[in-house]
């Protein structure tokens, strides 16, 4: 037997390790079960699917987390040096096969399960009759454009962009389709109707995020990116920018107002009347 280091044989480090790991596991489980800081309730059907997938992932990873951390703590305690001889084992082929296969099945299985919710958001086109709203990010505000009564978006000419003269999007004044376009600093949507947001950016990459929708999408200069959903709950929700876009990134903020059909029509009519003036 070789000579022992002076720190061998003490149980204190093992006990401390067990305490820290137990605190870690306990507090993590607590904050997840108590949902102390948590997602707000989802307001879209796909949001509920996403929450379901999160729950499944949480259960699976939670079990692995608890077992792995406790196994570590237990081994460190049980096999601390108290004069025993270490077991000379090079490995175990069957164990390697088992835990490799199990991990592969579980991990890929979760991914395949999640694909459905992802497809709901991105693989299909919009439902027929979807309300189209164009979302434009620019340092550091959001602009939302509705097609107006003619149902058509007017042409945009970048060199005409001038927020100070009331044309933040650069609508072409010579295009008749742009005359009735409604431009708003907040997003108004009717409840229970299919929506198609067309996401754009004028300058740098921004990202449109509303927690309750469970939707986040980067807005990329040069691209128009569609996002489809319908909202099931009336209310006011915050829109934040989620991709670093410069010094005002933290206050690039707008509101999503989800209204009843009647209230939404009223809002639309008010905007159209203001446009006509």
């Amino acid at each position, binding site marked *: 037997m*070789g000579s022992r280091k002076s720190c061998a044989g003490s149980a204190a480090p093992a006990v401390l390790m067990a305490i820290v790991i137990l605190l870690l596991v306990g507090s993590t489980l607590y904050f997840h079960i108590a949902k102390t800081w948590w997602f707000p309730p989802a307001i879209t059907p796909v949001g509920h699917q*996403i929450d379901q997938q999160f729950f499944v992932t949480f259960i699976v990873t939670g079990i692995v987390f608890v077992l792995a951390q406790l196994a570590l703590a237990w081994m460190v305690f049980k096999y601390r040096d108290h004069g025993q001889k270490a077991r000379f084992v*090079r490995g175990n082929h069957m164990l390697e096969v088992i835990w490799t296969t199990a991990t592969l099945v579980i991990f890929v299985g979760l991914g395949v399960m999640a694909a459905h919710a992802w497809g709901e958001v991105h693989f299909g086109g919009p439902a027929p009759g979807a309300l189209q709203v164009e979302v434009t990010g620019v340092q550091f505000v959001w602009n939302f454009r509705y097609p107006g009564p003619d149902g058509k978006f007017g042409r945009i000419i970048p060199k005409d962009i001038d927020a100070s003269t009331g044309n933040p999007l650069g609508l072409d004044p010579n295009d008749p389709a742009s005359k009735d376009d409604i431009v708003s600093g907040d997003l108004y949507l009717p409840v229970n109707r299919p929506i198609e947001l067309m996401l754009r950016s004028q300058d740098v990459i921004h990202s449109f995020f509303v927690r309750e929708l469970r939707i986040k999408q980067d807005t990329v200069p040069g691209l128009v990116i569609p996002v489809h959903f319908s909202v099931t709950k009336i209310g006011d929700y915050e829109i934040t920018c989620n991709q670093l876009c410069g010094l005002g990134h*933290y*206050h690039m903020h707008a509101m999503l107002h989800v209204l009843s059909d009647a209230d939404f029509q009223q809002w639309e009519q008010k905007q159209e009347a203001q446009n006509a003036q």
Partner: protein
Amino acid sequence: MSSHASAVHHSEAPKGWLRHYIFSLDHKIIGTQYILLGLSAVTIGVILSVIMRIHLAWPSVHIWGFANGVVSPEDYLRVITMHGTLMVFFVLTTVPQSGFGNYFLPIQIGAPDMAFPTLNMLSFWITFVAMIVLVSSAFVPGGSAISGWTSYAPLSAVGVIAGPGQGLGQTLWIVSIALFCGASLMSAINFLGTTIDLRTTGLSLMRMPLTVWGWFITASLALLAFGVLLAACILLLLDRLAMTSFFIPSGEMVSGVLLNHAGGSPLLWQHLFWFFGHPEVYIAILPGMGIISHVLSTFSRKPVFGYRAMVYSLSAIGFLSFMVWGHHMFISGMSPYSGLAFSILTLVIGVPSAIKTFNWLGTLWGARIQFTAAMLFAIGFVSVFVTGGLSGIFLAQPALDLYLHDTYYVIGHFHLIMGVAAIFAMFAATYYWFPKMFGRMMNETLGKIHFWMTFVGVYCIFMPMHYLGYAGDPRRYASIESVHYLFALQPVYKFISIAAFITATAQLFFYFNFFWSIKHGKPAEANPWRATTLEWSVPTPVPHDNFAGHYPTVYRGPYEYSVPGAADDFIPQDLAPERVAKA
């Protein structure tokens, strides 16, 4: 192999202070230089993170060094950009690989030095210049860049109209990283050539320590990945300085200025950056995984459980690392079908990492664990790696990433799995190899205090960030005063900040221990840990050509601990079979 190596390399150290210490060709000095460079970078990086945490938790507190003491939004972004850049490149990419790898790879394979000593010296000094260029960007007009360590275009491409710091500051950032790429490519060639060609007699691939495997696969990744980042940096510079449009589309209107660019794609920058960026995070962690296997085995007095599986999993991680970059881009506007493909591959790359974790646990099973400071950090690594790795399972699914992307959940994830885990590996490496580097022992009591404060501290800092992510707290926000749903998170911010201050202070134990022990530590014997690999068979201090002309022959694998029938609980790799004492 080794016979001509000794003929090529003169066995005496060069005279003259400049040749000996500054422009040394000796891999041990160069490794030390890299470690000291990394130590300076991490010191600045930690100070920057403390500034961040003071500002976030107590926004009105005045901080010395800022105009009127106030951290403006652009100052905050400068701080996070510099923090990320320094930490990822100049700490995590240099110390585990170019620091400890340079020092110990040649010795562990029985070679007198790296294959290309002059190239080695050049790699260090170019890295050094790169860091000077980066730090100098803080002092130029406009200040340093504000676009994050990821430097997304067009924010990073269009110049100062996009924001303060995006002028000369951003250009210097790009130049610094481009230089770093060049140095890394040189270093990768060196590591690969050395490992392939300079192994001593009897050291087959499957007898190499897992540290050597870690460095070897990391160097392969670096060779393939850094070229892409270098190209991306050159394209970005051209967009900025030569009116090209690789990353800038037409119709760009920035701050009232209509740009004359046309035809570029901002997504192209992301593809190029992350094609490098994902292998990069494995470059940061693979040497650490090798070191942890090595340290766990030594202080468990057992072979690494599943050595072959460990080699295959390191290789699988390396290979797959080039196929998962899109998981940084699920919501970037990239095709959602690509997103699905990247998602499955990302989940697959989790498997070899899980295999490694099972094998680390297997190494501890049936062990005889000695709780040295190095071992404590190795055990802590396993815990942190499990936690950080599992949060990756959420992020790998695009449906969940829809919510969690660019929130504090991601910050918690990558700090645990990349920052903390790799730092723990570096600490383990330091406590482990210090006796061989300096001929003295570090103080074990200070090491233990350092460990416990740090281990508890990092969990207190980074676990709550996952909860901030659930609440939808976006990254890179200079303040939470504009978003109503963030107000309730202020107490969590304060908790994290206090934990950060305590953890940062705990590192002072390490600094003191490290520098004090160089001169005043207890003198170390040649093999204080009774370990098996070749670095423990050479005297301390290590001779200039490592083996004083007598290159070893290797007779067995690297982890022959507690072998039944042997008198000692370890058998050195280079001990001839007839000289192994029987029980």
